C-alpha cells in the first residue's frame, strides 16, 4: 500500500482545505492525472497523482483542513496488494477536536464498524480511521458517522481564510523575500512592434474568432525562444546555487478580478506552435480567473512574463518571483516617432524590461537576451 500526501506548494503554505475529490476508491489513476482540488492561500489548486495506481481509500474528506504531508488517500500500484482495510494504519494526521479522535491502532486492533456505517461513511466521505464510535468497544454506527460529518462541516475551513487578504500575504512574502535575497539588476529596451502587429492583423483577419491570436502570445513565445542562447535566465536558485532548467516553462502573470495575481506556467513554451500556445494561454487565463489552476502550472515556471500594457503603463519594473532568476515586463504598445533609415516615422513600440538575478547572470548577458527578443519580434512569422 502507498500513501498519497498533501504536497507543499510553497514555503509559506502550511495547510490546505480539501475542496473536492475527482476520484473515488477503486478508480485507476495514471501518473499526472488530476485527482483532487485543494484550497490554499493562493486559491484553488488541482493536484495530480505521482504514479500509476488504484485508489484504495480516501482519508480526508471535502472541507477538511489538513497540514502539508497529511495522507490524503491510500493506493496500490499494479502488482502491489491492496491495503487490508482498516487494520489500524492510523494516518499521520493530528487528531481533530470534536467528535473525532485518533484511534490508537496498536491497542484497539481492528475497528468495529457496521456495514451500514461504512456505507454511510463512504457517502459522506467521512474518515473512518479517526472515528471512535459510541457503541460497545467503540463500535461505529451510522449515527456516529453522520455526527462526525456534521461536526467536520462546522469546524471546516475557518482557520484558513482565503481571498484577497490571504493572497496578498502570500504575494508579500514572496516579494519581500525577492527584495531581500535577490540582487536584482534591471535593463530596458524599446521594441518596434510594427511588423509583429501587421503580421498579427493579417493572421487574425483570415481566421474565425476561435483561432485568433492576441499579441501577448507573440511576446511570450519570443521570450521562450530568446532563452536558447541565454540559459542562465531560465531556472531556479535553490540552496545557494543555480539549477538551470532544460525545459522552458514561461509563467504568465494573470491578474484576478477579486484582486491579486497568479503567474502559472505554460509548459514547454518554446516547443509549442503559436496556435497551440494561444489555446493553452486562453485556457489557462480562463481557468485561473475561474479559480482553478493545476499544481504543475503553479509550481513549475522557470521564468516569468508580466504584461501590464492593458492598464496603460508604458514601463514595468518587475520583481523576480523566487526561486526564479528572471522576469520580463512588457508595457503598453504606443505610437512613437521612430527613426527608420534616417527618416522619422510613427511606429507602434513596446518597452521591454528585464529584471534578473546577479548571482546567476550579468547585464551583458541580460542585454543579449533583450536583443534576442527584439530580433524574434521582427520576424513574427517564425514564432
Amino acid at each position, binding site marked *: 500500500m502507498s500513501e498519497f500526501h498533501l504536497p507543499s506548494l510553497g514555503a509559506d503554505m502550511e495547510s490546505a482545505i480539501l475542496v473536492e475529490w475527482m476520484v473515488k476508491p477503486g478508480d485507476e489513476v495514471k501518473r499526472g492525472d488530476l485527482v483532487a482540488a485543494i484550497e490554499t492561500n493562493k486559491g484553488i489548486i488541482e493536484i495530480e497523482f505521482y504514479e500509476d495506481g488504484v485508489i484504495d481509500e480516501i482519508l480526508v474528506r471535502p472541507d477538511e483542513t489538513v497540514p502539508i504531508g497529511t495522507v490524503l488517500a491510500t493506493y496500490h500500484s499494479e502488482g502491489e496488494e491492496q491495503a487490508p482495510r482498516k487494520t489500524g494504519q492510523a494516518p499521520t494526521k493530528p487528531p481533530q477536536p470534536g467528535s473525532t479522535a485518533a484511534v490508537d491502532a496498536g491497542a484497539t486492533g481492528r475497528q468495529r464498524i457496521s456495514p451500514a456505517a461504512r456505507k454511510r461513511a463512504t457517502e459522506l466521505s467521512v474518515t473512518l480511521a479517526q472515528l471512535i464510535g459510541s457503541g460497545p468497544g467503540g463500535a461505529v454506527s451510522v449515527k456516529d458517522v453522520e455526527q462526525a460529518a456534521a461536526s467536520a462541516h462546522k469546524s471546516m475551513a475557518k482557520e484558513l481564510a482565503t481571498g484577497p487578504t490571504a493572497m496578498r500575504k502570500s504575494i508579500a512574502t514572496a516579494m519581500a523575500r525577492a527584495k531581500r535575497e535577490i540582487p536584482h539588476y534591471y535593463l530596458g529596451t524599446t521594441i518596434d512592434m510594427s511588423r509583429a502587429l501587421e503580421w498579427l492583423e493579417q493572421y*487574425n483577419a483570415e481566421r474565425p*474568432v476561435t483561432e485568433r491570436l*492576441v499579441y*501577448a502570445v507573440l511576446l511570450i513565445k519570443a521570450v521562450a525562444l530568446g532563452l536558447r542562447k541565454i540559459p542562465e535566465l531560465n531556472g531556479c536558485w535553490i540552496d545557494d546555487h543555480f539549477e538551470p532548467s532544460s525545459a522552458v516553462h514561461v509563467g504568465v502573470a494573470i*491578474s484576478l*478580478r477579486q484582486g491579486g495575481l497568479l503567474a502559472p506556467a505554460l509548459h514547454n513554451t518554446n516547443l509549442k506552435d503559436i496556435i497551440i500556445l494561444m489555446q493553452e494561454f*486562453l485556457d489557462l487565463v480562463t481557468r485561473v480567473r475561474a479559480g482553478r489552476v493545476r499544481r504543475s502550472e503553479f509550481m513549475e515556471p522557470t521564468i516569468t512574463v508580466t504584461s501590464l500594457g492593458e492598464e496603460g503603463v508604458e514601463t514595468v519594473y518587475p520583481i523576480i518571483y523566487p526561486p526564479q532568476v528572471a522576469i520580463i515586463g512588457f508595457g503598453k504598445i504606443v505610437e512613437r516617432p521612430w527613426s527608420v533609415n534616417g527618416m522619422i516615422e510613427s511606429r507602434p513600440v513596446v518597452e521591454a524590461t528585464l529584471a534578473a538575478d546577479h548571482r546567476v547572470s550579468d547585464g551583458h548577458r541580460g542585454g543579449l537576451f533583450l536583443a534576442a527578443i527584439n530580433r524574434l519580434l521582427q520576424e513574427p512569422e517564425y514564432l
Partner: protein
Amino acid sequence: MTKDEIKTVVLSALAKIAPETEGEEIEPDVNFRDQFDIDSIDFLNLMIALHKELGVDIQAVDYPKFSNLSGSVSYLATKLDIKTKY
C-alpha cells in the same frame, strides 16, 4: 431575434466573463473597459461566446464596434438580419 434578445445574450456573455456585471446597470454607450476591468483575453472570450451563441462571424477588424453595449447589439443585429433575409 429582437434587439432586446440580442442585448440579453450580450449581457449574459459579459456576466460569465465579469461576474460583477451580473444584474448591474450597464451604460450602453460607455466603453466596456471603462466600466469594468476587461482585458484582451476577457474580450476574446466575449467574442468567442457571442460567436458560439449566435452563430455570427465577427471579423477581427470589427472588434472596435464591440467596445460598448449599444455598438455590440447593433453590430449583431445587422449581421443577424442579413442572415435571415437571404
